[in-house]
């Protein structure tokens, strides 16, 4: 372990935190991933809305696409034209953002056009002002992820043996998966069903009965970003940042070859501590706020 490697690991953790936060807000603006099914159902149960419907294959594959796109552009510029790394990565992230803009628009158009019989209109003003916000967040996510892969492949010793696009694909899948599992609840559970008491679950009867009207006027997806940027986004960033930092920390402190057992042991230790903390958190939440209203006991599966 040397000071430079530890500094790089810290930088990777910081980049991952930013990437996680922007990834979650990006998916919340577009109503992607799990909450998307409620936005999709809303029109079908008689609630047409003005909320973006960015259905791009769930968060992991779509983020894998943005990050890989940014990675191929950066890799090509660095290897073929010997461009500076920061410039190449920034240009790559811009191309990824453009790809995202195209896919987002086509999903919004397509999903709403396929709900003709439910009178769901296609609003062009929503496309014009929401798509750039989504693209901006995708730019941040893919820039951070490709910078992490650049550090892994070119700077951190030992250099990662995989090529940049493949590592970016894997990191993209990871950030999407973490965004999907950590961040979605703050948009789906707390924002779409804001007038329901939190914790009571969502019965089938309520499917599609999402909040469509704001404090003034109709709710749109930028309002959702404003809400999710307060907690859901940062929480996701924390989740992804800790994953990247702790995982790289243990293999930087302990040499993965000569001290493999110690590195594995540290990983197991982290997993156990986090599980215990989660258990404590759930117990304390139930003790303080439970039993939840409307809770009728566990239903036998």
């Amino acid at each position, binding site marked *: 372990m040397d000071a430079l490697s530890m500094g790089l690991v810290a930088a990777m953790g910081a980049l991952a935190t930013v990437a996680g936060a922007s990834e979650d807000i990006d998916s919340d603006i577009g109503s992607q991933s799990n909450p998307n099914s409620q936005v999709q159902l809303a029109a079908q149960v008689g609630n047409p809305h003005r909320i973006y419907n960015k259905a791009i294959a769930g968060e992991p594959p779509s983020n894998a696409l943005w990050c890989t796109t940014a990675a191929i552009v950066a890799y090509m510029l660095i290897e073929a034209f010997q461009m500076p790394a920061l410039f190449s990565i920034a240009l790559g992230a811009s191309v990824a953002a453009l790809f995202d803009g195209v896919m987002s628009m086509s999903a919004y158009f397509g999903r709403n056009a396929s709900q003709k019989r439910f009178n769901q*209109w296609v609003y062009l003003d929503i496309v014009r002002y929401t798509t750039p916000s989504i693209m901006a967040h995708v730019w941040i996510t893919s820039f951070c992820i490709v910078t992490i892969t650049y550090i892994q492949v070119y700077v951190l010793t030992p250099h990662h043996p995989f090529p940049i696009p493949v590592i970016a694909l894997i990191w993209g899948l990871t950030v999407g998966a973490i965004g999907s599992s950590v961040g979605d609840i703050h948009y789906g559970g707390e924002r779409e069903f804001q007038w329901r008491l939190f914790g009571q679950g969502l019965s089938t009867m309520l499917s599609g009965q999402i909040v469509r009207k704001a404090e003034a006027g109709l709710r749109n997806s930028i309002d959702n970003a404003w809400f999710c940027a307060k907690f859901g986004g940062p929480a996701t960033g924390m989740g992804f940042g800790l994953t990247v930092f702790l995982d790289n920390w243990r293999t930087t402190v302990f040499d993965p070859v000569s001290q493999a057992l110690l590195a594995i042991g540290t990983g197991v230790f982290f997993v156990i501590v986090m599980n215990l903390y989660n258990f404590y958190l759930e117990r304390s939440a139930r003790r303080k706020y439970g039993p939840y209203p409307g809770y009728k006991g566990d239903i036998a599966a």
Partner: protein
Amino acid sequence: MTVGGGAAGAPAAFDVKKIRIYGLAGSVLGIYLAWILNTVTGTDIFSFIGAVAALFGVVMGANAVRRVCGYGIGTGVPSIGMLSLGMGVVAVAFGLSVADQFGMGALSVIVTLVYAMIFGYVVGVIANKVIKFNIPVMEEGLTDLAAGGAMAIMGWSFAISGSLAFADIVNDVINTGYIAIIFICGGLAILHPFNANLGPDEKQDRTLVNGVMVGGLSTIATGICAFLTLTPAAALLQLVVGFVIWYYFFMWYYRLVKRDASAVVGTGLLPPSAL
């Protein structure tokens, strides 16, 4: 959770058999045409034809996703797209290495296609008989999907390497990591069309046009990749061809959206019935 699928039995303007024949013939002949032109002229300028050939496979795959997922597989659409390209990657690796072993690199496309179709059929049988999906078109759909995915990967790999030789594709596509973008962008080209148009009023032509549009994006991506592996002129040509395909089909898609949507409005409140 299944959300608003229901394209099963929906009227399809294009017959599945026709799409399959055009998809298979277009992709195989296209890749061979590109290979022959490259070999005869001794350049790599015709590599972009491989990327165009891949689009035929994409259309076939996207139509298969539409048929299989129309039975109410809502959240399974991305999974089946990834499955398609996963089978495709295995088939391409198999086809290239077997053809290389026998010293006939040019046969790799045919070997890949045959292997992919058998592989897809077996996976379909397992999905229906063992996992008990009980979807009538599952075997047929997965055969199409595997073949479409394999041809898409083959076409775009050729577009990046400009050659059908095993060693060249390993060097230019796998060692550089470009296989990642072919996998994910090609996967999205096959799964995104039906996923983006999911709903009771989904139309086949709109879905397939969307597929070619995303295929255009993939061609732009392989054009970018090709700057490292081909001559700059060939890469630039591929980039321009990709952009033209994307632009043409995006505008076409937008026209179809305007045709199919309940209303396309500049701005406004909710429809009068919902206020």
